């Protein structure tokens, strides 16, 4: 008789396998069941293949740690061939994309503060005159060094280009100027982060990425949770409108987000000595806007997804590009144009400009109006989609 005694048969009992085989069979049973369930969930199945493929292609082509064609402004009243040759030489390095001609120093500063330009090439008014006289005039290259990684390559290239910059201009009587080192000097001015500490750039950026991650997840599950717990039907039978449900579901997390933001800011300034050069009020206001934008995206996912797993997958599908294409880990202007356009769609891109500019550069609301507007527009679009997508009936 076997060690395991069976109770008497009530109905004919099918033969069972040995103890070890039974255990193995239970694993197989779970495996088969899980696989069937996975296969039934079509969107999830599609995302299993789609997400890795899309992201591999996207990031493989988009990410470039040595950014070129950085937006540059020129500030000069010297229109001499020599000055133009200088600019031409810098442009030839491929690092500088001369997009703006600043009308004065304040104009140039504005371009930096609003993140339109990353460099300003300032050529003094009497540059050519001093050069011809052999006075070794200075050319000023002002870099927005809040992201040291993005600017270091360009600075090195600028210094290298200077040597040959004027080779073709310095002919005839001026040929003697070529003999020694360049007849002028390039002075580099690293603004906002003179020591080139990457931490000063990363920590404010972290505020944005952390908030994106947490806010998205809070709301991404909110509607699917109601569906999965069976409370949705009763909710839909009550006189409450989709907009009201959405606002009511988002609002508590704005408070949660505000608490998170304060914690991160306090720790960032105490532990990592990240300064807040600009107005704390502007930063708070725009951060709240960013929080609402992310909550709306999460909520939109929640109305589109059928179950919580799908909502989570959408969240990650949104989060990774946000991290990689927003300029958080890799310089924004280092990406190909199409990837930059893609990045412009992400709220994090705009918020990174906001948070870095306010903390490091002291940009004011006016400088950041475009990014604030983008966040607001984004929120509105996401909310509208969510309200339209919200199924008011069970049809």
């Amino acid at each position, binding site marked *: 008789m076997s060690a395991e005694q069976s109770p008497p048969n009530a109905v004919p009992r099918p033969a069972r396998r040995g103890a070890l085989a039974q255990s193995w069979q239970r694993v197989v049973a779970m495996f088969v069941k899980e696989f069937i369930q996975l296969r039934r969930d079509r969107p999830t199945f599609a995302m299993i293949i789609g997400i890795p493929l899309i992201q591999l292609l996207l990031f493989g082509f988009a990410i470039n740690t040595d950014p070129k064609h950085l937006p540059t402004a020129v500030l000069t009243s010297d229109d001499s061939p020599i000055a133009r040759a200088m600019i031409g030489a810098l442009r030839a390095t491929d690092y500088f994309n001369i997009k703006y001609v600043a009308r004065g120093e304040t104009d140039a500063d504005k371009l930096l503060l609003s993140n339109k330009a990353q460099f300003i090439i300032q050529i003094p008014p009497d540059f050519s005159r001093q050069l011809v006289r052999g006075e070794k005039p200075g050319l000023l290259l002002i870099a927005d060094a809040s992201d040291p990684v993005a600017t270091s390559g360009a600075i090195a290239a600028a210094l290298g280009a200077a040597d040959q910059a004027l080779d073709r201009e310095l002919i005839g009587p001026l040929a003697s100027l070529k003999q020694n080192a360049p007849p002028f000097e390039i002075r580099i001015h690293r603004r906002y982060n003179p020591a080139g500490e990457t931490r000063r750039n990363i920590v404010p950026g972290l505020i944005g990425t952390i908030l994106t991650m947490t806010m998205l997840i809070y709301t991404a599950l909110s509607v699917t949770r109601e569906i999965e717990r069976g*409370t*949705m039907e*009763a*909710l839909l*039978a*009550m006189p409450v409108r989709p907009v009201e449900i959405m606002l009511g579901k988002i609002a508590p997390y704005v408070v949660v987000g505000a608490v998170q933001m304060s914690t991160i800011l306090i720790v960032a300034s105490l532990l990592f000595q990240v300064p807040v050069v600009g107005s704390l009020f502007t930063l708070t206001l725009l951060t709240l806007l960013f929080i609402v934008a992310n909550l709306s995206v999460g909520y939109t996912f929640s109305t589109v997804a059928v179950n919580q797993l799908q909502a989570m997958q959408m969240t990650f599908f949104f989060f990774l590009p946000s991290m990689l294409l927003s300029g958080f880990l890799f310089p924004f202007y280092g990406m190909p144009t199409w990837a930059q356009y893609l990045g412009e769609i992400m709220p994090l891109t705009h918020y990174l400009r906001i948070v870095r500019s306010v903390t490091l550069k002291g940009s004011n609301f006016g400088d950041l109006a475009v990014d604030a507007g983008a966040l607001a527009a984004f929120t509105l679009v996401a909310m509208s989609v969510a309200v339209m997508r919200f199924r008011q*009936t*069970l*049809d």
Partner: protein
Amino acid sequence: MSVESDIAIDVRGLTKSFGAKKVVDNFTLQVARGNIQGFLGPNGSGKTTTIRMLCGLLTPDSGEGRCLGYDIRRQQEEIKRYVGYMTQGFSLYRDLTIRENLEFVARVYGLEAPEDAAQAALERLGLVARADQLAGELSGGWKQRLSLGACILPGPSLLLLDEPTAGVDPKARRDFWDEIHHLATQGLTVLVSTHYMDEAERCHQIAYIANGRLLASGTIPEIIADAHLSTWVVTGEGLDALSSELKHLPGVDIVARFGSTLHVGGRDEAAMERIARRYGAEGVHRWKRDEPTLEDVFIDLMTRAGPDQ
């Protein structure tokens, strides 16, 4: 206008399909104000779908009608305000306390003093002592009471209850029905789906639906009369064997066991009489002619409707 009307539910030709399957087919029903309308039918017959169309949760593919005078296609917002719908499963928030759930409902319906309304509901339900318990921790019977309480709290004019007493013990079911009758005397109209015959018998009117089609409707005597069933009650030994034998006999439409008796019936009275005489003559069982019960009629309707397609 609408609220004064004496007809609370008035729908014609409601039809709803999911994919290729016609779940509700040409459903027509009128329910007078203050009536308790029983809604019966086998599982999957389209009861829940019909109820959902009545309260605006589903849009009918065709057909039209009014609930409390409001168009079920276009005035869903008004319907939601005055109709209390109790879903089949427990659909309040399990992670909220009883009081919090009631306050939530009171606020969603825009009541002036939600806290007071919730407190009043707690007292009416006899749940004051457990007000701060999580709703998910309640037993089946209390969950059902709470659900009904939440439905009534905003003061609806029409209650739609989808199998409210499934899985509830007999005492709680009895109390529940006492409460429903009490509400009906106050003028509330109730449509309630159920599988229990004793509950069906407490309704003023009954509608029977199978495979999405309304097969019978009216008061209990009307439904029984319309069925034209002739039934005999059989007692004696070995009823199981007799039951298997009778089932295949032409002329026999229903054979159903009720406790220690067997109900045998058919729509062809003459044929049934011959069968009763022949089997009665054998002397093994006692055959006694009796009025068909509501359940006999339903079993016949269900058998005739055939299996769920």
